[in-house]
C-alpha cells in the first residue's frame, strides 16, 4: 500500500523505482500473453533490454517453454485466476536467466522458484486479465541443500564402513546377509558364506606391534575384496582379525574355488611373519558353507556352520579352506 495522500505522479514514480530496485524478477503478461512489464532484475539477468521484450508474446520470447509447466501456469492464471508454484526441484531453471555474463557464456542458469499469480485489474479495461510471473533466485538455497544431502550420504556410508579397513562393517554385513538370505530362500538358489581368520595374528601383533597389525589387516581386507567382484558379493570385517564373505547364487564348488583364490591372494601379499606357526608370511584359514536356505533355516545356523568349518581348517593345520560337512582331509 502507498500512502494515499501522495499525488498520482508521486505514486507512479515510487512504484517505478520499487520495480527497478526489487531483488526478484517480475514479468507481467496481458490476456494475450504479451509482456507488458519486465523489471530491472529481469533486464539484468536475462541480458535482454525491455524494448526487445515488451509487447512480445510469451511463445515468441520463450519458444522452448510453449505448453510446458510455466506456460500452463500462465494460462491457468489468465483463464481461471489460479495461482501456481513452479518448484526448482521439479523444474530445472525454466527461464534463461544468468547471474553474470560469464555464467551466460557457460550456459549456467540461475536456479529458480517461480510463482505465477493472476492480478486484479479494473474490469473496464480491455483485456483486463493479467498475470504476474515472479522469479526468485534460489541458487544459494539449492547449493546449501545439495551440500547437506552430500554430507548425509557421506555419514550414511560411514555408518556401514569399518573404521580401520574401509570395507563394509558387521552392521553392513548383517543387513546385506538378511537381504540375500531372503532372496535365496525365495528363489531356492544356493547361498555361500565364508568365515575367514588370520593365522597366528596374536603372535603377529605381540611381536610387530599393533600399528603393524593394523596395516596387515588393511592389506588383507583389500586383498579379500579384490577377489569378490560381483555387486551382490560382500566381504566385511566381522571383528578383530575375522572377516566374512557372502556369495549369493554360488554353489559349493564355486564357493570353494573363490575361498581358495582368497587364500592365495592373501598368501601372495608376502607380508613377513617370522612368528607364524604355519609359514614365513601372513596366511588365512577359511571355513565355507553353501546352502539353499530351507524354510526353517536361520542365518545364525549358516554362520555357525561356517564357523565350525573354520575351526576345522585351523585344526587341519591352518592356511587352508574347509567346507562345512567336508571332513575328508581331517587327519585321523
Amino acid at each position, binding site marked *: 500500500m502507498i500512502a494515499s495522500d501522495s499525488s498520482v505522479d508521486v505514486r507512479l514514480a515510487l512504484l517505478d523505482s520499487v520495480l527497478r530496485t526489487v531483488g526478484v524478477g517480475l514479468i507481467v503478461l496481458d490476456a494475450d500473453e504479451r509482456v507488458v512489464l519486465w523489471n530491472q532484475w529481469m533486464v539484468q539477468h536475462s541480458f535482454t533490454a525491455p524494448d526487445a521484450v515488451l509487447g512480445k508474446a510469451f511463445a515468441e520470447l520463450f519458444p522452448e517453454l510453449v505448453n*510446458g*509447466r510455466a506456460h*500452463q501456469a500462465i494460462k*491457468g492464471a489468465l483463464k*481461471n*485466476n*489460479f*495461482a*501456481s*508454484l*513452479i*518448484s*526448482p*526441484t*521439479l*523444474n530445472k531453471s525454466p527461464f534463461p536467466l544468468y547471474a553474470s555474463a560469464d555464467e551466460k557464456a557457460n550456459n549456467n542458469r540461475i536456479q529458480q*522458484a517461480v*510463482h505465477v*499469480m*493472476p492480478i486484479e485489474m479494473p474490469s473496464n479495461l480491455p483485456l483486463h486479465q493479467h498475470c504476474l510471473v515472479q522469479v526468485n533466485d*534460489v541458487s544459494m*538455497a*539449492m547449493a546449501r*541443500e545439495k551440500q*547437506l*544431502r552430500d554430507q*548425509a*550420504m557421506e555419514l*550414511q556410508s560411514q555408518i556401514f564402513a569399518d573404521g580401520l579397513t574401509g570395507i563394509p562393517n558387521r552392521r553392513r554385513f548383517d543387513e546385506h546377509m538378511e537381504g540375500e538370505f531372503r532372496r535365496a530362500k525365495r528363489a531356492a538358489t544356493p547361498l555361500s558364506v565364508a568365515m575367514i581368520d588370520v593365522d597366528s595374528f596374536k603372535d603377529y601383533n605381540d611381536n610387530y606391534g599393533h600399528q603393524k597389525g593394523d596395516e596387515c589387516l588393511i592389506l588383507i581386507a583389500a586383498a579379500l575384496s579384490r577377489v569378490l567382484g560381483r555387486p551382490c558379493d560382500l566381504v566385511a570385517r566381522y571383528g578383530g582379525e575375522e572377516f566374512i564373505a557372502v556369495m549369493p547364487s554360488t554353489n559349493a564348488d564355486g564357493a570353494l574355488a573363490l575361498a581358495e583364490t582368497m587364500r592365495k591372494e592373501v598368501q601372495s601379499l608376502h607380508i613377513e611373519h617370522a612368528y607364524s606357526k604355519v609359514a614365513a608370511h601372513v596366511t588365512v584359514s577359511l571355513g565355507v558353507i553353501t546352502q539353499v536356505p530351507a524354510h526353517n533355516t536361520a542365518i545364525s545356523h549358516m554362520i555357525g556352520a561356517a564357523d565350525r568349518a573354520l575351526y576345522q581348517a585351523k585344526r587341519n593345520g591352518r592356511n587352508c579352506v574347509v567346507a562345512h560337512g567336508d571332513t575328508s582331509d581331517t587327519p585321523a
Partner: protein
Amino acid sequence: MFQLTELQHDALVELFNQGVGQAASAMSQIVHEEVTMSVPTIEFHTRAEVAQALGSVESRRICAVTQTYQGAFNTDAMLMFPEEKSLEIVRLMVGQALTPEELTEMEQEAMNEIGNIILNSCMSTLANIAGKELHGSLPMYRIGTSEQIFGASGGQWNGMVLTLKIDFNIEKHHINGYVAFLLDLTALQDLQSYLDQYLSGLMS
C-alpha cells in the same frame, strides 16, 4: 447429513477424474515418465470424521498442501498424504535416492507444486461448469496430526468435508492420497446448483 443425488454424485466423480487426469499428464510432462491418477470414490463427512479417518486417534502425522479458492464458491482445498507417502511421492518425482527422513525445504517446495497441480486441475473443471470466476491462492505446505491440520475441535462450523480418494501411480508404485474440500452450507448449495446446471446442459 448432506447428500447429493445419484446423478450429481456421478457427475462430480466424472469431473474430478477429468481434473486429476489433466494433473497426471502435467506431472508426466515434468518427470518424463508415465504418471496416472484416478478418483475412485468421493464422500461427504464432518471434519471430525475425516480427522479420525486420517488417524487422529493414533496421532499419525500427515502432510498437507492447502489452497484457498474464492469466487464461484468458497473452499479450502487440501491434498493429504501420510508423511512417509509424501516422501515416497516426492522422491519418485524427483528421482533422488532416499536420505533424510523428512522432506527438505526444496522437497517441500516440490510437494507444494504437486499439490498445486492436482488441486488447480480439480478446481478448474469445477470452475468450467460453474462458468464463474474462481480465484485460487498459492499453496501452503503443512505437516502435523490430522487434528492439527483440520483444527477439528475448533469453532461452530456447520459445513461438510468433501473427500476424494486419489490413486496415484508412478513407476510401478501405487500410492493413495486424499483431497479434501471444506465446504460451508452456502458453498455446498452453490456446488449443487452448478452440478444441476451442468447435468441439464448434458440432457438438453
